[in-house]
């Protein structure tokens, strides 16, 4: 397994964690070579997770854009309402295989926390989730869901009280309890081997897109679009398409219009070391990690997965930032045009997809990964509407 993507990645962690990361790498390598593990993973993916997910033609959204066809990869239909299940299932099965009885996770929007809590229940693992206080407030429905699923939710009151601080808290727990606990990291970030494991587990998204595209159109889509916070649904979408001629577009959170950098580390950051990996980071001159701003808790993160840093530098993937109000507009378009409430995270990608489709010919296809559903965001959307009126 690659330790680095170009210069990015690595494992900058306190020594206490090094043996656990090695054990994890070994365990993952064994597991994915084990036919029995793969069968069990595939079975639960289908019967519990609801995979495969459909590729849906958004007819009225396409008409609104007035250009290329827009297709939605419906990860919002996965069990729990987001792509996070794909990763959580694989790592939770791996936890059982490693003989560890306890799971911990960080969560921003709460979707990864919910996925971890669900699988903790399914597989009988004790589960604790760290979540920033700011995020607990703005994604309250997911806090309730995690609790109902039997997980303990630990509020994080340090720093900006968002995803970054939840990861800090989870890492500290892991350092203390590493012998009995697996840290089920939710995005393609963190020290090696996490970015690779998460990318492999999420690549089911891109594989299904490619398979359906060949069946429907006989060729891959002209463009694939996905939102990028840490970047797990995006890397899952992009990886299987890297060797195809498909253009790839990653969409970061630009935050409010007055914001200097929002949460767009690839657009406005520079290479640095955060949460165990070398990648793009929003930081000041002294390397102090910057506070980020985004309407979507899931994208509100100052770092990004190292493979994205590599893909950015290589030019294979373009990354653009979309502002809060544009994401909100896209949320309403999808609601009114297609009857789908998207999470605010992929709403950023939907906005970019519509903009791209508008300037492309009618025969082209734009696939956008709808990474999660929007039930959790109703309060945020309502509050934004109140502010505008």
């Amino acid at each position, binding site marked *: 397994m690659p330790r680095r993507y170009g210069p990015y990645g690595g494992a*900058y962690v306190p020594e206490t964690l*090094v043996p656990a990361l090695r054990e994890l790498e070994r365990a993952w390598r064994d597991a994915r070579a084990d036919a029995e593990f793969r069968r069990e993973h595939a079975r639960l993916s289908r019967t519990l997770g609801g995979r495969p997910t459909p590729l849906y033609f958004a007819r009225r959204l396409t008409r609104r854009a007035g250009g290329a066809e827009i297709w939605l990869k419906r990860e919002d239909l996965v069990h729990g309402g987001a792509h996070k299940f794909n990763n959580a299932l694989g790592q939770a099965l791996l936890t059982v295989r490693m003989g560890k009885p306890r799971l911990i996770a960080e969560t921003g929007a709460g979707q990864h926390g919910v996925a971890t809590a669900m699988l903790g229940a399914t597989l009988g693992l004790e589960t604790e989730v760290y979540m920033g206080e700011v995020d607990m407030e703005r994604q309250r429905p997911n806090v309730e869901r995690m609790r109902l699923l039997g997980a303990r939710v630990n509020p994080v009151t340090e720093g900006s009280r968002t995803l970054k601080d939840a990861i800090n808290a989870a890492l500290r727990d892991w350092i*203390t309890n590493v012998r009995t606990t697996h840290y089920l990291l939710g995005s393609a970030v963190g020290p090696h081997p996490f970015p690779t494991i998460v990318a492999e587990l999420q690549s089911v998204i891109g594989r299904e897109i490619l398979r359906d595209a060949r069946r429907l159109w006989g060729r891959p889509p002209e463009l694939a679009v996905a939102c990028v916070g840490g970047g797990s649904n995006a890397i899952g979408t992009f990886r299987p398409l890297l060797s195809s001629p498909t253009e790839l577009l990653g969409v970061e959170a630009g935050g409010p219009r007055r914001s200097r950098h929002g949460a767009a580390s690839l657009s406005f950051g520079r290479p640095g070391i955060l949460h165990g990996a070398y990648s793009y980071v929003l930081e000041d001159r*002294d390397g102090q*990690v910057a506070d980020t701003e985004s309407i979507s808790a899931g994208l509100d993160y100052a770092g990004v997965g190292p493979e994205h840093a590599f893909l950015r530098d290589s030019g294979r993937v373009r990354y653009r930032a979309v502002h809060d109000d544009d994401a909100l507009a896209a949320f309403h378009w999808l609601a009114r045009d297609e009857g789908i409430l998207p999470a605010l995270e992929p709403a950023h990608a939907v906005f970019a997809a519509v903009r791209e489709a508008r300037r492309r010919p009618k025969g082209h296809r734009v696939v956008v990964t709808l990474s999660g559903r929007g039930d959790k965001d109703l309060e945020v959307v309502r509050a934004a509407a109140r502010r505008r009126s």
Partner: protein
Amino acid sequence: MPPLADALSAVRAAGRRPAVPYLLVDRARASRLEATVRALAAAGAPALELGFPFSDPIADGPTLAAASGRALAHGTRWSDLLFALRRASRHLPAAVMTYANPVWAHGLEAAARELRAAGASGLIVPDLSLEESGPWRAACRHAGLELVLLAAPSASPERVARIATGSSGFLYLVSRYGTTGAGAPVAPARELASLVAAAHRARPRLPVLIGFGVRNAATAAAATDTGADGIVVGSALQEQIDRRLGPERLRTWFAAIVRGANPAG
């Protein structure tokens, strides 16, 4: 011999065990730094660790994480670290302890040069594993800084030996599974003793200092009972500073820890 290794070896040669204090640089305390360092030196500290705050201190427990956050809120910058180094290194050889990113942000080579020029003898980076340490060791060697590596109870004796081989100045042995400060129990003494022995076998002349959770005379004694050459005291000292203990009382407090690490006879 470089100053850090030199100072620790001198204590060792005298048959004593060094107790090294950790002080976090905080712009709001800049005017009191030198008095604090003098008090610690008077209490018997042979060297000093100067901490530079980081926004995301994942190896730190509540005391030092909170102190780090306050220091940043007070506007502490890299230039404050260099200023503190110039002052502190008049009294004691000093190693800088900070996370990888603040050093990286200034460029490895440039940061190492600046720290050395300001009087630093060593650099300690708690989130730098042996595997990633290559370029850091090169930059430090080039600048004349000793790069101190950390080992932990989760490592096998073989791995501790490898870490000791890559370390300079001393080997920082983390006492337990956990972050800095009180809370998690110290790893069993037998376990730590075997790691200390492994480090000594690999590098007989390299001092092994135990840190994380050493907070008074009793824990200092327990830590050195493992065969370790000395101790590092961080969170407990920060607590005293947070309580605004004056230099005189700080000296008395730290002297008790020095005695704990060096029982009579």
